[in-house]
């Protein structure tokens, strides 16, 4: 299918189904029940899953294939966001020009950053990209205020020209749309005590993510992708095999920068605002964590990692001590206090602690990330069913 091998087509279809049914699967608990706070099926969070998925897929093309660890990819995310926002201010609230422009601008910017940073490798490359990202952040925060809105950031205003749209009706505000379909609009489905939300913005972002995922599979399986993996494996041998590593690494850098820009553009398409903090170095670090947590150099890993981190960030952080008291109310008083005191540092604002512990556990015990974990579980099941291996080899 679409020039993919059987195995890859199967994975693409599986991801497509998961993404399409996410509003159901992420809302397994009935509304109003004690477990409802673990539901992740609301538009805002689902959008973040797929958008950060795109960000991580792109980052993985650079880090996973070539081994060049960039600590500055949030800069491209931010540049993409500003670019999309300006399209919304100047041209139209339709998200399509904004998304296209965000990819282009991020591509040009990453070409400049990559061209300079790729003169060095290893830690020096990482530091150079980090420096560029922090410079971009500072510029966006201060000097470039006329373009970036500085501290307050940018939002669409009533007074914006928007030359392709007609002027707004009195008292209305500009809303991002896809040829008339508002990104914020949702269809809600009530089944018994379950409530499922199907959001237009989420599905737009999901389709873009599937395209991005498909392109990444094609790159992984191409001769170009082979050369990128060879860069990671043995750059010296590659040089002495008649291949110029520089354009390969630069192309990978620009592609991953464009993915980041795309993610940034989609963020603006969803919530129509942008601030400089989007380019802060912690945002660059986050995508590194996502990629490693999911599985560096694997196809699906970055998406898994992005979802896992965004889930913890949004769900774990909402649990507070009142909720803990509810959960452990059945315990005798003294014991209840004790258990809650033990758990409390890991929830709410302490979710970073949990993330840190999980990250350490994954790096130590599953160097291949969540994907390796999945493979190990799959192997356990395979071993219990003798004869299955033989059948697998035939297919």
């Amino acid at each position, binding site marked *: 299918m679409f020039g993919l091998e059987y195995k890859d087509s199967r994975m693409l279809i599986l991801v497509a189904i998961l993404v399409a049914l996410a509003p159901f699967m992420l809302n397994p608990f009935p509304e109003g029940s004690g477990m409802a706070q673990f539901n992740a099926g609301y538009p805002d969070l689902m959008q973040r899953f797929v958008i950060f998925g795109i960000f991580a897929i792109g980052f993985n093309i650079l880090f996973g294939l070539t081994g060049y660890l960039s600590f500055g990819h949030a800069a491209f995310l931010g540049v993409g966001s500003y670019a999309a926002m300006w399209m919304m201010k100047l041209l139209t609230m339709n998200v399509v020009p904004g998304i296209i422009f965000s990819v282009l601008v991020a591509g040009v910017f990453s070409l400049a950053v990559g061209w300079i940073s790729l003169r060095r490798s290893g830690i020096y490359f990482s530091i150079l990209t980090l420096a560029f990202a922090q410079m971009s952040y500072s510029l966006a925060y201060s000097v470039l205020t006329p373009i970036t809105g500085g501290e307050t950031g940018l939002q669409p205003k009533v007074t914006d020209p928007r030359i392709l749209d007609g002027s707004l009706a009195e008292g209305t505000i500009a809303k991002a749309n896809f040829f008339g379909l508002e990104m914020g609009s949702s269809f809600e489905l009530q089944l018994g005590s379950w409530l499922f939300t199907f959001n237009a913005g989420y599905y737009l972002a999901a389709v873009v993510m599937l395209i991005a995922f498909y392109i990444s599979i094609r790159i992984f399986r191409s*001769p*170009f992708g082979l050369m990128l993996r060879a860069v990671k*494996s043995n750059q010296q041998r590659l040089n002495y095999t008649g291949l110029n590593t520089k354009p390969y690494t630069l192309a990978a850098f620009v592609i991953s920068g464009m993915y980041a820009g795309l993610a940034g553009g989609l963020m603006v398409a969803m919530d129509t605002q942008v601030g400089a903090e989007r380019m802060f170095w912690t945002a660059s670090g986050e995508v590194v964590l996502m990629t490693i947590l999911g599985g560096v150099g694997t196809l699906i890993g970055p998406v898994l990692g992005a979802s896992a981190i965004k889930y913890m960030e949004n769900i774990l952080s909402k649990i507070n001590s009142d909720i803990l008291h509810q959960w452990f109310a059945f315990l005798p008083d003294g014991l209840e206090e004790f258990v809650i005191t033990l758990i409390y540092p890991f929830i709410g604002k302490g979710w970073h602690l949990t993330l840190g512990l999980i990250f350490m556990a994954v790096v130590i015990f599953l160097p291949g990330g969540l994907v390796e974990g999945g493979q190990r579980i799959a192997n356990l099941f395979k071993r219990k069913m003798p004869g299955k291996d033989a059948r697998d080899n035939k297919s």
Partner: protein
Amino acid sequence: MGILEVKNVGKRFGGLQALGDVNLSITENSVHAIIGPNGAGKSTLLNCLVGKLIPDTGSVMFDGKSVLGLKPFEINQMGISRVFQTPEIFGDLSVLENMMIPCFAKRDGAFTPNAFINMMKDREIVERAEHVLEEMNMSEKQQMPAASLSRGDKRRLEIGMCLSQEPRLLLLDEPTAGMARADTNNTIDLLKQIKDEREITIAIIEHDMHVVFSLAERITVLAQGTPLVEDTPDNIKGHPKVREAYLGETQDAA
């Protein structure tokens, strides 16, 4: 005129004159060995030929064209392939993928942004890679990660990768260093076979006299950065200057 002409090449590292005034001519389709005691400048000379180092003085001409100042990948594209002292292969990739990379480099040049074709569906490249692996007797190891090969097989793979590009000059830097006797003999047989079956020039830097005398047609003896003598293996064996250079080394070591 040889295929490779080295004229008055000198290289200095700080206070150390690594290469004095090296003149060397390698005849096309011959096997030329460069030997010499430790620190004679053999590796420095080789690095000057492949673009890793730029000599301070002199010229290096390959097939009538200067290679000075060119990058290693450009020199490779001219037709010089290099085998390293410790096998340099792509350990994370499968044996077949290892072999496909030089095939792509040979056909498509130093950079091709072909991100949208499936590499396994490029029959020309896959067949070429499989063919060379068969010649190297490694067909059944195609799917193995290259890092898990034995030392001898890694060497075979690396030589195969170089041969798949059909280079005009193959440079070998101590190809049997650190190998067991059996592996060494296998490598000698492989190189003999290559020499007999192909039109190829081989330059070999070696410490092991057994390897040198089984393969070489001409031998250059290098000592303290300058060529001492250049002659056929038979004449080199009994040459007083050579004995002196090597004997001197053993006395120093003792």
